[in-house]
C-alpha cells in the first residue's frame, strides 16, 4: 500500500515536471562528443554559411538548462538548422546534458 502511494506521488511529480527529468550533466564525459562542436563553436569569428551567413553563437557561460533545451529543439525539429539538427539527432539525452554542463560551467572564470 505504502509502495503504491509512493509510486502515485512519483507519477504526479513526473507529470508536473512535464515528464522530463533533468539529467545530471558531466563536463568530463562531454569530451567524447566535443569534436562535433569545436569545429564551429570553438573557432573565433566562425560563421555558418548555410542556410544563411551569420556567426555561430558563443556557448561559454550559457545556462545549462537552456543549452539542453536548444539541443532538444534541434532534435525535435522546432528549431531549424541543418547541421545542428543532424548533430542533435545523434546525441542521447545524457550526451546533451554532458555537453551543456561543459559549456555552462566556467573553468577559472572562463
Amino acid at each position, binding site marked *: 500500500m505504502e509502495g503504491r502511494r509512493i509510486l502515485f506521488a512519483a507519477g504526479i511529480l513526473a507529470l508536473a515536471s512535464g515528464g522530463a527529468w533533468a539529467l545530471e550533466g558531466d563536463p568530463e564525459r562531454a569530451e567524447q562528443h566535443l569534436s562535433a562542436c*569545436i569545429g564551429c*563553436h*570553438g573557432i*573565433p569569428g566562425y560563421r555558418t554559411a548555410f542556410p*544563411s551567413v*551569420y*556567426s*555561430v*553563437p*558563443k*556557448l*561559454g*557561460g*550559457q*545556462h*545549462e*538548462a*537552456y543549452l539542453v*533545451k*536548444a539541443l532538444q*529543439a534541434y532534435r525535435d525539429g*522546432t*528549431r*531549424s538548422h541543418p547541421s545542428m539538427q543532424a548533430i542533435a539527432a545523434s546525441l542521447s539525452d545524457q550526451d546533451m546534458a554532458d555537453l551543456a554542463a561543459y*559549456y555552462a560551467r566556467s573553468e577559472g572564470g*572562463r
Partner: protein
Amino acid sequence: MHKRHLIVLGLSAVSLVFSSAALAWNAERGQSISQVCAACHGPTGTSIAPDFPNIGGQHRDYLYRALLDYKLGNRQDPIMAGQVAELSRQDMRDLAAFYAAQEGLYLKR
C-alpha cells in the same frame, strides 16, 4: 566625364547611403526598446532563469538571426513568437547590437 556617368555615380552614392542606413546597428536605440526583453533576459542580457538564454555578449548577427527566425517560424517558441510579432527588422538589429555590446557570453573551445 560624361554627364550620364555622373548621374550613375550620383545614384550609386545615394543608394549606398540608403542601404547603409537600412543596415545600421543602433545599440543606443536598441537599449531604449529593450525593457520588455529585460523582464526575462535581464537589463544587460544575463537572464533571470536557466530556461532563458543569456544574450549579453553574444554575436549581434546571431542574435538578429535568432529574432528573425522566431518571426519566420524557423524557431518555434510561444513566448518569443509573441515578442517578435511587433518588432521590425530594424528593431531586431538594434536590440541585437545592444545586447552584443554587453558583457557575458564568451567563446569556449
